[in-house]
């Protein structure tokens, strides 16, 4: 999974039918200190996150392993809102 930060949202009225009703968020990867890195994705939010929040993103076919994304054309999903990161 990728540790990321929600930096925005994406609105698309014309889209694949399987994406209708899905919340599209713009997520940038971050390092362990929270600094933004280059990679970003448009991920479907199945958890209910807001802009600025730290999240975990799953990519690839595993992204379809939730009730909200099964058998839909989705390859990136926000699966968790991060409370804390413990590194030692």
């Amino acid at each position, binding site marked *: *999974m*990728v*540790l990321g930060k929600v930096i925005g949202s994406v609105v698309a009225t014309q889209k694949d039918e399987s994406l209708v009703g899905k919340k599209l968020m713009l997520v940038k990867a971050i390092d*362990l200190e929270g600094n933004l890195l280059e990679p970003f994705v448009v991920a479907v939010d*199945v*958890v*209910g*996150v807001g802009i600025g929040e730290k999240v*975990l993103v*799953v*990519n*690839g*076919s*595993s*992204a*379809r*392993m*939730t*009730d909200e*994304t*099964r058998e839909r054309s989705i390859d990136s*999903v926000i*699966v*968790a*809102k*991060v*409370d*804390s*990161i*413990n*590194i*030692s």
Partner: protein
Amino acid sequence: MFYGKVIGNIVATVKAKGLEGKKIQVVKPVDMTTGIESGKFIVALDITDSGIGDYVGYEDGKEAAWAFEPEEVPTDATIVAIIDKVNITGE
């Protein structure tokens, strides 16, 4: 399977159903031949009881989710082994 070292963990109370009750670890990829730790890290679920400092084997992609079959778990990285020893022979 990839080789790495557990350097920490993540707490997330609000998450997809499939992640309920699963440990979320922070893993640094490690070069198995040199032992050198990568500057990068990934976040992985864990079916072992590995802890910080353990060397582990992890799967990525769809296989990471199959580690939980038949349960449907949205993960693209899962620790599936704690590695005790690495023996490399030959040149």
